């Protein structure tokens, strides 16, 4: 019984870390680009994940996740940097309120009738990569301790709990000005993208997962510095000689 609870709690906590990354991407992209395509992308990701888990089962732990981390990380990083840069420019130019969230050249939220493939792709990648990592955790802990059912409950429970928290927070996220939201999501995508791409190359981060908040702080400090510089430049201010 003790072993069952140990496996359940361990898989829940380990999976919760991955689920937080998954839900952060889905909520951030949904709030910025619109929910319909984002949720369809997330659902597609879960569909692919379910097929992979059912087909591979316990053999899942043999799948090399490094190349997947590298590809997904590099794509998230290159895309995240575009929003990071645009977010800095918009916040520097318009402050936190933005110009009513409207930009005739670069509308942040998809307003077309069809699918927003950018939102779909971002949500799909986030769910597939993080979902696979949860599946690896479940298979590794569950098979190792011969408590696969408890590990599955822990992994799925973590996704449901963290997903529920994300759902509860999404109204709050919608109140954030669009220019600031684009900057925040750009920073988050760049943070996860940097972390995963480097991990995918087989390079160890100092401190493991603890490197994520450090990267986040570095990128937030970078954003604040560049916003200040851009504002000073727009106002015609020059640093003192």
């Amino acid at each position: 019984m003790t072993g069952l609870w140990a496996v359940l709690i361990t898989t829940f906590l380990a999976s919760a870390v991955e689920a937080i990354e998954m839900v952060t991407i889905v909520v951030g992209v949904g709030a910025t680009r619109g929910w319909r395509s984002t949720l369809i992308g997330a659902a597609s990701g879960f569909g692919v994940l379910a097929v992979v888990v059912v087909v591979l089962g316990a053999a899942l732990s043999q799948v090399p996740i490094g190349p997947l981390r590298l590809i997904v990380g590099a794509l998230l990083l290159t895309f995240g940097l575009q929003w990071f840069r645009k977010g800095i420019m918009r916040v520097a130019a318009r402050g936190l309120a933005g110009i009513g969230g409207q930009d005739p050249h670069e509308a942040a939220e998809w307003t077309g009738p069809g699918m927003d493939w950018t939102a779909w792709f971002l949500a799909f990648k986030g769910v597939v990569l993080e979902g696979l990592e949860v599946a690896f955790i479940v298979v590794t802990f569950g098979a190792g301790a011969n408590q696969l059912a408890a590990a599955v409950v822990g992994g799925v429970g973590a996704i449901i709990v963290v997903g529920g928290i994300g759902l509860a927070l999404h109204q709050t996220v919608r109140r954030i000005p669009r220019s600031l939201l684009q900057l925040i999501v750009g920073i988050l995508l760049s943070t996860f993208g940097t972390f995963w791409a480097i991990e995918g190359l087989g390079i160890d981060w100092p401190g493991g997962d603890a490197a994520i908040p450090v990267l986040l702080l570095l990128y937030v400090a970078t954003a604040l510095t560049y916003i200040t510089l851009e504002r000073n430049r727009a106002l015609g201010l020059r640093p003192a000689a």
Partner: protein
Amino acid sequence: MPPPFSWIVAVARFLYDFIVGDDWTVAAAIVIGLILSAILNVNHIAAWWLIPVIVVVMLGVSLRRASRRLP
């Protein structure tokens, strides 16, 4: 353009916008940074710092270029 070709063009355009966007130098710097990181790692030299440095530097370069283009 007939459907199979128009789909290929649409997918290529989407991927270009998604990966490269409006400043190709940032995407190119990330790719070069990842290649350099892999080379450093193979030679047992710590490489985790390289991409964050490239991100910080290239953001500054790209922002400066973009603000010069503004009227």
